[in-house]
């Protein structure tokens, strides 16, 4: 089961269809090949280097809260 993490878009490289996204203090390069109409400050679900979907800020915050809860439970094996 593969988790998909919501991340906020902080910059976009339109030429290469790439973006820099942030999750907390971590920043990472991802591909936008699978999604359309992405703007700075949008939230996208990220998996293995690709943005899978754009999601609303509200949805993203809910999902991030669940990941935070999971992290607090120490779920990583």
């Amino acid at each position, binding site marked *: *089961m*593969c988790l998909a993490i919501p991340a906020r878009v902080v910059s976009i490289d339109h030429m290469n269809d790439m973006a820099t996204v942030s999750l907390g203090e971590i920043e990472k390069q991802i591909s936008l090949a699978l999604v359309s109409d992405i703007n700075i400050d949008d939230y996208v679900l990220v*998996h293995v280097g690709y943005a899978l979907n754009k999601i609303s800020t509200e949805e993203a915050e809910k999902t991030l809260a669940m990941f935070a809860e999971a992290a607090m439970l120490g779920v990583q094996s």
Partner: protein
Amino acid sequence: MEIEGKLHIRLLREHGRVVDVDIQSSRPLQAVKIFQGKHIADVIKIIPQLYHVCGVAQASAAMTACEQAMLIPVNEATQSAREMLVWMETVREHLWRIMIDWAHKLDVDKDATSIKTLQQYLPQLRQALFVEGEGFRVGARVNVNPEAVLSIINRLDSMLEDTVFTVAPAQWLLAMCEHGPEKWLQDSNTLASRMFRYCSAVEAEDAFTIPSCLPVLDDAGLHQHLTNVDADEFIARPQWQGKSYETTVLCRQLHHPVVRSMVQTQGAGMQARIIARLVELAEIPGRLRDLMQHLCANDADDSVAVTGQVSGIGLGQVEAARGRLIHRLELTEGRVGNYQILAPTEWNFHPQGVAAQLLKNLSSTDVTTLKTQADFLINVIDPCVRYEMTVH
């Protein structure tokens, strides 16, 4: 982003040949603990958001477990419509991997237009099958729009022809049955045929392996494994009756004469796995049309009881794109007491599983070449697993 977790794969070489493979996992298998105490309706909503990659298969397994636990009857029309969504997700997963991963590996430009068009089919199919597009909630109601469904299937057929097969998928299947893959490989220069040619070139000649496919798992046996004191160990490193098994697209397609013949002659290596994925892809439009006919022939009110024996406990098994996905839950007054997910990755990347076995067949004196071969191999077993690999 470490919450995603990953596999840590270590290849040990002697004289250029891989002699041992060590696979450790930091995948967050216990993330489901956050469901404890939550209302089942909320959990059903959360699951496809958390596990977005195979979100439909996850939602389907969750719904089956939920409906079983709550002894909610599900009619055949709903089951058929849900199955159609799972197959459409499987198409999307297979095609993503071909159009993105294979294009990348073969240094070919990605077809961004087709990739984005493909993204639309699943939400369109949801809307064409269910009231408000909601197929995975208690009381989901089928409201099929046959014209819209057939239009989506026809567009999918065209996309498969354009991006993978060069002919209609059904025609490709027929040609494969009549002539085998040789003629297609001769005539075609698509990503799929190029990937196949690459793999046949790098595959070790002495890599003949027979697949050990996960058998049907009976509910009673699964309940027993998942309630034992070592249930977490079973979820992390599953074996059945003391044996490691694989659950992959190859296993799903082993009944097909083209796939079976390739396994018999070439073994269950990269080539057979690529052909299995292509055969599955080519078959899906036909499957969707059959399910559509079945759906239209069955009255939506024709309810059937699900097979759950004990109220409050449910089990759902679904064939996701990457293999069999199992959800088990325990409910008390509508709230989750325990939730477990057994994912295909844990079978396939078991330390003695299919990935470890096939990686042991690799050999190259050049570390970069060896890593490239290993990447290809992992991609054909499970294209979306996150991993890091080291060679020693």
